[in-house]
């Protein structure tokens, strides 16, 4: 009797547990179903497009589409000597077909990225190759039209650009290239501009971050120390610029800093200067305007980390005989470090990708990486290089964002981000 009752209890318990688990699972599925629409949406409007951009950084099918027989003929070629007659004949046939369909310019553009002057080689060949060369004479005919066909580099360039994927753009974005033997070497000086571009982007971002930290620290300290009534009032000075349109703020700085602007006029009126100073369309203008735009992103995290520091620590330090400076350096400052690092990283990440402000207030020598990505996308249509530069910038951003994520873990992620 007792035994059967216990077993009945046990089976009820098992059944209850199973039902509970099922209910819990249903609950989780429902929760995921609520998140799903956003995930699908972001796949279409964000992740997909960025994946597409990354794909373009290695995609290399233009030459393959225009010169298919040539690429096929070069597949077996070891690149040590000039290719055989078969490759020349394939090229002649491809060039004539491309000329008929008007696609020769596509291949010419891609090949010209890899070897300066290739556009001329291909167009002159296309123009002068009136009829298909007699069998066995393709090599001779082509070399007569353009002596470049007698050079190994011309052919390795075509083979390298044969796709379907390439490291060419990514290497170019790091000032590297492949030489005629396929080894990775430094790019020629006239093409090696990207390392210095990344360095410049880093230097500007670092300077802006340092300026924001120097200017933001005392302000955050003041806001965290004052009684709430007064600090709330002063907070307006930080939040109003934060909410004001980026374009308005950039425009305001141009109005203030231009040669007949408010600042120059005032300095002139005060008798400090005779000639207007050059304050804008240079590095100075970029740093001032970007610091203005990004300062709130520094002050807000600093403020929240300082707000969490109990004044009791400082009092305890004082009561134990620490002079104020020692107490500040050894008790207060270390506790602000999470805020300092979070704010600095946030400002640095945002500064790295800035486009609008440097474009409008910087000179030619102050343009950052984003400017070149935009330039190569819309003006010169060098999409491979634009995507490769974008990939490098994205990688840097993701790495820094991961560090930022680790830092703010546990801290409240407040709405302190607005691009």
């Amino acid at each position: 009797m007792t035994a059967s009752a216990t077993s009945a209890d046990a089976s009820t318990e098992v059944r209850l547990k199973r039902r509970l688990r099922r209910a819990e699972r249903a609950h989780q599925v429902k929760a995921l179903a609520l998140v799903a629409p956003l995930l699908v949406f972001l796949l279409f409007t964000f992740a997909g497009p960025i994946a597409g951009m990354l794909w373009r950084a290695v995609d290399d099918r233009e030459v393959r589409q225009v010169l298919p027989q040539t690429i096929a003929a070069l597949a077996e070629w070891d690149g040590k000597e000039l290719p055989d007659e078969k490759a020349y004949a394939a090229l002649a046939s491809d060039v004539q077909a491309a000329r008929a369909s008007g696609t020769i310019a596509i291949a010419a553009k891609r090949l010209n990225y890899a070897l300066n002057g290739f556009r001329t080689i291909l167009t002159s060949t296309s123009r002068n190759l009136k009829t298909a060369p007699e069998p066995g004479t393709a090599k001779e005919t082509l070399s007569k039209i353009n002596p470049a066909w007698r050079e190994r580099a011309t052919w390795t360039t075509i083979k390298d650009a044969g796709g379907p994927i390439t490291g060419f753009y990514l290497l170019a974005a790091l000032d590297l290239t492949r030489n005629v033997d396929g080894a990775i070497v430094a790019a020629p000086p006239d093409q090696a501009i990207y390392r210095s571009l990344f360095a410049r982007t880093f230097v500007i971002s670092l300077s802006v971050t340092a300026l924001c930290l120097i200017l933001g620290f005392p302000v955050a300290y003041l806001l965290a120390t004052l009684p709430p009534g007064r600090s709330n009032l002063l907070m307006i000075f930080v939040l109003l610029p934060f909410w004001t349109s980026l374009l308005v703020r950039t425009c305001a700085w141009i109005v203030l800093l231009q040669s007949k602007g408010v600042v120059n006029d005032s300095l002139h009126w005060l008798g400090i200067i005779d000639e207007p100073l050059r304050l804008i369309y240079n590095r100075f203008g970029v740093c001032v305007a970007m610091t203005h735009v990004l300062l709130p992103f520094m002050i807000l995290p600093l403020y929240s980390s300082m707000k969490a520091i109990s004044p009791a620590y400082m009092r305890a330090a004082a009561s134990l005989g620490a002079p104020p400076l020692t107490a500040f350096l050894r008790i207060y400052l270390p506790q602000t470090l999470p805020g300092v690092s979070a704010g600095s990283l946030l400002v640095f990440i945002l500064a790295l990708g800035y486009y609008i402000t440097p474009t409008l207030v910087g000179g030619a020598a102050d343009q950052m990486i984003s400017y070149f990505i935009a330039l190569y996308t819309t003006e010169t249509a060098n999409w491979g290089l634009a995507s490769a530069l974008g990939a490098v910038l994205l990688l840097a951003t993701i790495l820094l964002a991961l560090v930022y994520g680790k830092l703010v873990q546990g801290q409240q992620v407040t709405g302190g981000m607005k691009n």
Partner: protein
Amino acid sequence: MSDNASLRTPSQRIAWTTTLVVSTLVFIFLIAPILAIMPLSFSSSSYLTYPLPGLSLRWYDDFINSPRWMNSLKNSVIIGVASTVLSMVLGTLAALGLAQWKSRFKPLVLAFVLSPVVVPGVITAVGLYFFFAPIGLTGSYLGLILAHTALATPFVVITVGATLQSFDTNLARAAASLGASPLQAFRRVILPLILPGLASGALFAFATSFDEVVIVLFMAGPEQRTLPREMFSGIRENISPTITAAAVILTTVSVILLATMEALRRRNERLKRGG
């Protein structure tokens, strides 16, 4: 000042005075440019210099009578409102789901949902430009609304999520135990309580779209140019006082958004203290 009562030593007083002076200078640095540009829009002259030769509303008149500027204002409002509505729906649902979902993948999903904020604008814009062009979504309102929604939704997820954190789930259970269907419980119990969070999310979303310019630069056709986009080309060509009038209008919108945000925050704080 009462705070200075605790500052006994001269060095402490010097430190505090330095903080005050530096902070004041930084506050001036932050606010002066925004204030300086405003009076220029009321100038009667077309030179952007002080002192103002006289006051006039001619640049506002210019703005209102320019089809280009008015069209851009209209576009900004259309795209802003549409992407706000869309991001509110997607973001609120996701925030509700994330609040209940327990999984070790949750941080990963959250990072993905928030990533549009951190990824540089140019990268998103270039990606969208390549992705949307073949399917006819560049140069269209829909394309811009979708793109702005992607940028704005993280802010909705953050703000609504923060509100849900302080929400007492027992209230929803109580509603259920009293016989309310999940939908009824949401509409009559949860929704009124998280409404301030929803409102701040909407404000953030609208502000994000209203201020966005990089994606518009890449994707908008002449028909879809927004107010920041017109300002961008205006600044590039030559800053006319009409741009300062546009700047004042944009700033006014920001002030209204900020004031609403502050009011919501204060109401929330009052409720918290009262509760």
